């Protein structure tokens, strides 16, 4: 068990390193110049201040800016410097906006994590609940209803769910505000919670549909197991049979799906945070993509990969701990 965990941790570290190298190199292949906007902006600032820059001065500015972000170095050296700074806890600065990435990321990650955690709990609760009900009432009306709805729900892209919700709950019924977000401990907790409703619904509906389908099939397998038939034959009450004999076996495979869910939530945050103008990490990523902000793209990708890898690691270990049949090797 211990050697398994050590091996898996090593594997995770190696994946994060590999991803950061791949993304670093890929980004340097991007067409376009991240400095260009910045230079234009500096020149305009200078003109507004009444100073006209000569061409030499512009070239000098360009060289300075390139050097400031190590862009004048060969790629391996750039990567080496970036990695050294990362290990010291310095995530660098945004090329376009100049803010310190680790501070900004800290503030934004709190928001993204807060929303993802709520979405996660709601998805798990309702997904498992609906899936279990369907499995117990297999073939009945409620099963057909939930299965049809979730079949349909899985085909609707996240942004479409968001738009329908905004239209119905935001514009027609005017129940919930349709954009902006802040954390409840940043003042006005009631307002914060009202602003949470639509993003959370967007983030959970698709996941609930998928999870309900998955739970339904694993629970059906568990319901047909021999020891469950024995339990029924002994005359145990339905509640006891389901809660004690079926639920645990039926839910074990779900644990392995949680890692994928976290990956999906962070990937989807890009779209949800754009629609609802939430100042989270996904929003930061879209901004960085549109302005080719190498440092920010690199930092966010590595961070998201790290979170995904950690989630997979924890679910793997948890799975082995819950299911004694799994042998660590």
């Amino acid at each position, binding site marked *: 068990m211990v050697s398994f965990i050590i091996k898996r941790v090593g594997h995770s570290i190696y994946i994060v390193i590999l991803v950061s190298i791949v993304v670093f190199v890929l980004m340097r292949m991007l*067409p376009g110049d991240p400095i260009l906007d910045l230079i234009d902006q500096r020149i305009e600032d200078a003109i507004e201040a009444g100073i006209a820059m000569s061409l030499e001065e512009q070239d000098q500015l360009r060289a300075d800016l390139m050097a400031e972000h190590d862009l004048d170095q060969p790629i391996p050296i750039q990567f080496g410097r970036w990695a050294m700074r990362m290990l010291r806890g310095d995530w660098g600065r945004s090329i376009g906006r100049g803010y310190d990435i680790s501070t900004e990321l800290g503030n934004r990650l709190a928001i993204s994590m807060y929303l993802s955690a709520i979405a996660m709990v709601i998805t798990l609760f309702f997904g498992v609940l609906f899936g279990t009900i369907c499995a117990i009432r297999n073939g009945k009306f409620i099963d057909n209803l939930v299965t049809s709805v979730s079949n349909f729900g899985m085909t609707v892209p996240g942004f*479409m769910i968001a738009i329908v919700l905004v239209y119905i709950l935001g514009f027609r019924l005017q129940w919930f505000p349709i954009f902006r977000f802040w954390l409840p401990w940043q003042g006005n907790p009631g307002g914060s919670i009202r602003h949470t409703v639509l993003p959370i619904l967007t983030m959970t509906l698709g996941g609930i549909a998928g999870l309900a389908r998955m739970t339904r099939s694993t629970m059906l397998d568990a319901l047909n197991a021999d020891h469950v038939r024995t339990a029924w034959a002994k005359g145990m009450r339905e509640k006891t049979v389901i809660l004690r004999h079926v639920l645990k076996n039926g839910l074990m495979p779900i644990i392995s799906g949680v890692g994928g869910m976290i990956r999906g939530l962070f990937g989807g945050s890009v779209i949800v945070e754009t629609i609802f103008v939430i100042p989270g990490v996904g929003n930061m990523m879209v901004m960085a993509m549109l302005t080719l902000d190498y440092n920010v793209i690199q930092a966010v990708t590595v961070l998201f*990969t790290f979170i995904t890898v950690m989630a997979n690691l924890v679910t793997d270990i948890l799975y082995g701990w819950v299911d004694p049949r799994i042998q660590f090797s």
Partner: protein
Amino acid sequence: MSTKITNDPNNADNKGPGIGEPFGEQSFEVLTEAPLPPVNEFVRFMKVFCRRKVVVFGLFLVLIVLVAAIFPNQLAPHDPLTINLLRTLEPPSADFLLGTDDLGRCTLSRIIHGSGLAMQVGVATVLVSSVIGTVLGLIAGFGGKFLEELIMRFTDAWISIPGMILIMLMAVILGRGVFGLVLAVALGGFPGYIRLVYGQVMTVKQNDYIMASISMGDSKMRIMFKHILPNCISPMIVTMTMGLGGGVMAEAGLSFIGLGLAPPTPAWGGMTDAGRAHLATLPWLSLAPGMAIVILVFGFNMVGDGIRDALDPKMRGTNN
């Protein structure tokens, strides 16, 4: 001897002699029982496939979009790119069935013209990622320890990057043409195929007939194409049809956040985003192209479900 012998009891030629009938020439024919007619795999496939109404409905939806994608000019009432600033943001009318957008372009025509892109991206991404995935999976399975480690560890890393982030990165790198878009979405999805093919290679390799094949001196190539690939085809088709909807959704997501095809080319995701500004007053501008995405993805998924049921013996007889 008659050559038309079947096992159909209703066929008069095939009836045995009744009680009391003399045994004549006919009875001889009955005794020479023909082997059962071979099961027509295609007919069986179609039977399972068409058993669920929702699957047939899905196929119907896909066909509608396909027709729109092939004949956009014949079906669209207006040109999708013509700007008419005198008739902007009109509600649905007899002239413009789904109204006009903020540049006076016909929404319905733009949706019809967008179907080609959605179809192309869906089909092309699946083809590209399955081909890349199959080749790399086979190399990993047959190319020796070093290549195996290299490819499979790379796959592990690739799969750990959140999907949408990866596709966005690739889309920015590969440029904003149809080709770049297809490649970006395909590169987001190909590790799944590598794992599938690699898994099949590892499973099939255990069989005795591979051992026999090796001991007879068959080349790796022959084993690959004769034994491994045929085993991959069934799970591959299922993954591919399931991937169609995913490809369409990924492309729509990209063009929704502004990283898809450059305007003015009509793309469903981009139209949904552009219509968002008028959601309170003219909801169809956003909802109609969004519904088109849902219809196509739903159709693809249902067809995928049907194919899975028809190909997988374990799934036969279930109703989900």
